[in-house]
């Protein structure tokens, strides 16, 4: 199979990026729970232990405070740790080391200390894992200064952004969605498993991408939401509506220009976010457009976001609450021509 046609899952793309970078940069190492022989609960470190051994691929105790803190100390001392926080939901046991140290030490040191660490963490629900294993928390991480925050939606970006994240001299929080990983046991959105070049490359952090061009409405999303949005765009096309889908890819830095230019073209905005609705990504995207020029929006912007409720276990409740293509279609139609 020629290289350009090689399809990889997001999990394998992540592992490949790490492995290729570890080959050329001795300072890079991986730590976290079950990242060793198991290869990561979500498969993204598979093969690394076998290739690099237990020194550079370290299983940790269930001590997130210690190993996140250790990542800060190791990064400040010249290493380039990649640390896994197995589920983003666990951030509450170790966030101090992340948001007060990893994110701020460069600033506090006046630029004299860099903290080139990558935190990779799984997000998202949809498979009934209950309210402590299904959250996205994109807004939580993006709100606090000093960390870059990226959210790849497919394997190509996953590899390129992982390489970029490892090479970045600032801390990067790399949030991957479980439903895109390509782990059989979780079910995978097919669109996430795409062609991935064998060679190393980077996808610039801070740049959004238009993944489907359109004229009538701009759908801004990230991660799993991009796929729902693409499905919605396909359905809309059948109804004669041309939707443009923007994949944010990076929340910090946020590509405000890209969003603005798309909305300027279409005049309508729908934001799709699997994170909680209020005080998060969806509000910021909307505000960032209207504070710049409110006249470009013809009708009220719409949000398709997770409601402000904990995530219920039961399949039918959770699915009811999650964003999906149907809700996005309805929101787009409303954004285009609200019934007044």
């Amino acid at each position, binding site marked *: 199979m020629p290289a350009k046609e090689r399809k990889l899952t997001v999990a394998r793309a992540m592992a490949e990026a790490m492995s290729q970078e570890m080959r050329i940069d001795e300072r890079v190492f991986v730590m976290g729970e079950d990242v060793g022989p198991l290869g990561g609960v979500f498969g993204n470190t598979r093969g690394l232990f076998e290739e690099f051994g237990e020194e550079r691929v370290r299983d940790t105790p269930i001590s997130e405070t210690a190993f996140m803190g250790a990542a800060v100390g190791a990064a400040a001392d010249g290493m380039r740790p990649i640390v896994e926080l197995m589920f983003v939901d666990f951030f509450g046991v170790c966030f101090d080391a992340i948001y007060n140290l990893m994110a701020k030490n460069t600033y506090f040191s006046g630029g004299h200390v860099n903290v080139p660490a990558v935190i990779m963490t799984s997000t998202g629900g949809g498979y009934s894992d209950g309210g402590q294993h299904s959250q996205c928390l994109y807004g939580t991480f993006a709100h606090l200064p000093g960390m870059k925050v990226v959210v790849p939606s497919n394997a190509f970006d996953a590899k390129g952004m992982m390489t970029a994240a490892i090479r970045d001299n600032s801390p990067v929080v790399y949030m991957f969605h479980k439903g895109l990983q390509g782990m059989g*046991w*979780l079910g995978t959105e097919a669109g996430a498993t795409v062609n991935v070049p064998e060679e190393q490359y980077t996808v610039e952090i801070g740049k959004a991408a238009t993944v489907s061009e359109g004229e009538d409405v701009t759908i801004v999303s990230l991660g799993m939401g991009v796929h729902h949005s693409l499905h919605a765009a396909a359905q809309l096309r059948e109804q004669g509506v041309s939707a443009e889908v923007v994949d944010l890819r990076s929340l910090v830095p946020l590509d405000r220009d890209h969003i603005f230019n798309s909305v300027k073209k279409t005049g309508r905005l729908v934001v799709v976010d699997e994170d909680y609705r209020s005080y998060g990504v969806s509000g910021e995207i909307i505000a960032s457009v209207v504070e710049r020029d409110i006249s470009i929006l013809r009708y009220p912007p719409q949000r398709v976001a997770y409601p402000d409720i904990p995530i219920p*276990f039961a399949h039918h409740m959770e699915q009811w609450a999650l964003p999906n293509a149907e809700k996005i279609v309805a929101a787009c139609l409303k954004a285009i021509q609200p019934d007044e």
Partner: protein
Amino acid sequence: MNPTLEQKQWMYRHMLVSRLFEETIEKIYLEGKTPVFNMANGPIPGEMHLSNGQEPCAVGVCAHLNKEDVVTATHRPHHQAIAKGVDLKKMASEIFGKETGLSGGRGGHMHLFDADVNFSCSGIVGQGLGPAVGAALSRKMQNKAGVAVSFFGEGAANQGAFHESLNLAAVWKLPVIFVIEDNAWGISVAKETATAVDRNAVRAAAYDMPGVYVPGNDPDAIFVAAGEAVSRARAGDGPSLLDIETYRLAGHFMGDAEAYRPEGEKEDLLSKDPILVYEKALLASGDLSESDNSDIKERAKREVDEAIEFARESPFSSPESALDHVFA
């Protein structure tokens, strides 16, 4: 104090109910997940952590507890819930995500709450320790009967919450018992690579509280150690740490290939199945007659069958009711 005949049978029966319950859940869990295993499918979606092999810890401790006593448990909660007297029908129904479930399906297998018997559990490692300390504080402040028990794994003993909670319980001399179910694994990570000491019991000294190691995964031995700790708590003498050797006979969760286990471990553990060992011992000592045994087994089976049937036949709540109960 050694368990009475009645207590032994109580422990045996509850271990059996737990085992049978999980064996049934295990089968149902796989419905819709074959040939392709996808956690999102089937009547019971999501993660499923079974406790087979760890039943002695639950019954040995809970044999000393009443309804009023508080238990906080973990992501692997079935055996503890059953030993604590959680309503089996509502529990099964919750695991199916049904309206008649303990929480109407909002919690699920990792979030079982039964206020009637003061039981709760949760999904983050080490999360139950603080709440147990708080429940014990509540009892002390209200001068109300009842102790609190927090169950957790040996992996959780490396969380900061362990340290903080044991210290707080000790300085406030609270009626709480911390129970480690040491199954030697935290998912795929072996205790010896994660924990600086051989036995977590020694850590009790860091909080000036008794720490007892109980080897053998044996209900009677656990009963004895727990009895002392519970009495101590009830007498107002403060907290204790129990460090119990146990075995996880299955994977971390269903779908776990268990490739990380050393060769032969699984077979060895299965050969030491604590329920079979206990059954044999009870029969041999005469604490259990063959006919008692079949009565107990039948009763256990009936209870489990009824619970599962109840769950199966219960309706789902309306999807929009996902919006309910965010606030009190």
